[in-house]
């Protein structure tokens, strides 16, 4: 019964990762099984139905909707050009004919005799899916996409903004608890994945954006800074579609909080390597966390020592954990005691608690709901 209900985020030096790269609608897969792909290789492509432009021909021609089909100059399925006449009224004794021109180019999809409305479908919109993760095509899902596999170092962040990108890892901070501010960002970092330490400032992100940095990863961010970058107060944690030109990943949380030492060291050790970063976060049903994938050097396989996945969420004495709620927010320690019976908290409510031996040597008591496992 000693379970922590929040399994922490994955931070592994080496793991086998499979990326599902799937089109939203059926299309054509561009690569074959066994191919080696780079991050920006297009693996699948399709054409999405074009935009629809409705037009009420009956009103335009002052005709009855029922007469519209016979007034049409184009049939369903015909291609139409913008401003091309597509329907003409009969007029009075063959004179004073009114004409109706196409408002957009495309294909005449439907003509309704009930409403007098026609639909013109615009040209198809190409949709491409890139490989994102460099690696080998494990499986081709016909007409849908591919599964790409590789051995990677995987770091999940807690929160991010911006979509998929990739670049070379460059360190901007030398310690895991060093604040990332604007001076740390240099022009050489263009196109790179920049790793900071603790809180990153809005100025730093703004500078990174100017320089052309692909992604910034750091421990924490202030809400006011986030608001400044986004231009609005983020209400719901569903992100990934922002058009900021930069991807931002927060590994620990909001406020002045340093990146977990282990995460920092893991990234530091891989400085100069290529990484794929996705800031998309969805904290809702179907939880999605931002991720940083660093493919291992060719020929290296996943170390078996790291794959000892303990049953997720089990709290035992000595388990490394992090407190995830004030007043001890962000502190790291190990489980020192697991009292069975619930205790009364400062807030007055009763809850099951545990004692945490902090790195500083102090021991504090916190509700079990307020800790998360540091997964290894």
């Amino acid at each position: 019964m000693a379970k922590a209900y929040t399994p922490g985020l994955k931070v592994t030096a080496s793991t086998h990762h499979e990326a599902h790269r799937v089109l939203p609608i059926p299309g054509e897969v561009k690569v074959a099984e066994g191919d080696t792909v780079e991050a920006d290789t297009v693996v699948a492509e399709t054409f999405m139905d074009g935009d629809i432009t409705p037009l009420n021909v009956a009103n335009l021609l002052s005709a009855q909707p029922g007469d519209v089909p016979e007034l049409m100059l184009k049939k369903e399925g015909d291609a139409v050009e913008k401003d091309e006449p597509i329907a003409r009224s009969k007029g009075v004794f063959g004179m004073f004919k009114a004409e109706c021109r196409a408002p957009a180019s495309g294909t005449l999809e439907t003509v309704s005799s009930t409403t007098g409305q026609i639909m013109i479908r615009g040209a198809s919109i190409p949709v491409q899916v890139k490989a994102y993760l460099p690696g080998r095509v494990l499986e081709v899902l016909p007409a849908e996409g591919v599964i790409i596999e590789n051995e990677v170092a995987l770091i999940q962040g807690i929160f991010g903004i911006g979509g998929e990108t990739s670049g070379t890892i460059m360190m901007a901070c030398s310690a895991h608890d060093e604040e990332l501010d604007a001076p740390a960002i240099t022009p050489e970092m263009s196109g790179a994945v920049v790793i900071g330490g603790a809180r990153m400032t809005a100025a730093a992100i703004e500078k990174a954006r100017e320089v052309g940095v692909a992604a910034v990863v750091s421990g924490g961010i202030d809400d006011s800074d986030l608001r400044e970058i986004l231009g609005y107060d983020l209400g719901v944690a569903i992100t990934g579609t922002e058009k900021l030109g930069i991807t931002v990943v927060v590994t620990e949380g909001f406020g002045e909080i340093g990146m977990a030492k282990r995460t920092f060291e893991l990234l530091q050790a891989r400085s100069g390597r290529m990484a794929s970063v996705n800031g998309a976060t969805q904290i809702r049903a179907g939880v999605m966390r931002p991720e940083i994938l660093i493919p291992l050097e060719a020929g290296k396989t996943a170390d078996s020592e790291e794959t000892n996945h303990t049953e997720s969420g089990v709290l035992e004495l000595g388990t490394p954990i992090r407190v995830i709620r004030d007043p001890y927010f962000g502190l790291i320690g190990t489980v020192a005691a697991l009292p069975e019976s619930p205790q009364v908290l400062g807030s007055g409510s009763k809850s099951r608690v545990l004692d945490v031996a902090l790195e500083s040597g102090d021991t504090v008591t916190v509700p079990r709901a307020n800790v998360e496992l540091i997964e290894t």
Partner: protein
Amino acid sequence: MSRVGLRSVLILTTLCTLCASGVVVAAMASNSAAAPPEPPTNLIAVDKPWDGGGVVELEWTASVTPDIKGYEVFVHQMVSPLVGELETNMQADAEAEDQTQEILEGEGVAPEDADQQARVEAENDVTLTTNEPEWTSMGIVLGNELAYTATGLDKATPYVFMVRTIGADSTASANSNITTQLIPVAAWFDGEKLPLFCILGVICGAVFLFVLLARNGMPMKIRTIAGLKAVDEAVGRATEMGRSILYINGIQDMDDLQTVAGVTVLGHVAKTAAEYDAKIEVPTSRSLVMTAARETVQASYFTAARPDAYNPDLIYYVTDEQFGFVAYVSGMMTREKPAACFYMGAFFAESLILAETGNSVGAIQIAGTAQPSQLPFFVAACDYTLIGEEFFAASAYLSGQPDQLGSLKGQDVGKILVGILIIIGVTLATIASATASAPGLAGLHESMTSAVDFLVNTILGS
């Protein structure tokens, strides 16, 4: 108000003339008894400055004869030939207007018919009055007073004045010197109207101030007008039921304010109809209204970004005939069963016919008119009714433009001011009449009466 005022002025003038001639006769009769006193000298007449015209101030040096009763002031109006005819016409006009109003209020007859009738009757009623170009006594002042203010004069004709001394035995002296000709013209500002000017200033200032405030983003709250709020509902009903909307803009022409207000509301209704893509039909009883309605509706369809849905054939002219129009509209209602009917404008006897027909076909009906006699019918038979002022405020309400909202708010200040004046006046007058017969409160009565007088004569003007 102004009509009543004019009439009372005329009556007063007539009375004054009659009294004055009586006094002259009396004075002449008692003249032969003793030696007449000396007349006053140095008579000077000055047109009163800062007045509305028609007032002359006279001053003279006292008569050398001691112990006199007083001085009698005489005036002579120089001839102005057209005066008689003009006055008759004015009187007839006023009479005719009064009667038109009576006919309109009493019977459900269209205004121009009523006008015609009234005019004929009025001309028969009014009789001619003429002025005698002789010395006319204006009144007698006491012997110790050496000045007189002549009022009630015509501001366009020249006058001369003369004063006689009235001796202790009521004998009149010879004429004093006659003043030079003087026209008691109106100054560009009448000092007596200063309180009125202040009130006007407050009202205009309020309008101006509120317009400015509104432009600067001060929120202006207008009470919700249920009838206008319900426009969406009525149009929605028509859309859901797949039926049309009927809009009647009254049966008057564009020169009637109510028709103009109706066209404003039509713009709003048509815009809503365009948004819902509902059919709106506007039969009119005046050709000019049809044109105005077409332009308004077209503009609304453009605003709603649906110019393709605008069909001018649905806005058409039927007939000028009051009941011909009503017959057509009622017939159409029973045949096509519109889901929403709007009656916005000037209506007469047809109001109830239209509203009842609309009710019987199950339409949501919204009416708006400033005809007091038709309001009860609309209220009873329609779902919502815009009453008088609400109807005129509709354009400000609907547009939400700061200028219009501000002026509406400013006018409210004026109304509040009027309300306050009425309450004060009524209270003062009540106290004055209540204390009239109370023995110990004579002083209070006096001051109250003078306060009422001040209010009526000075602040409100004549």
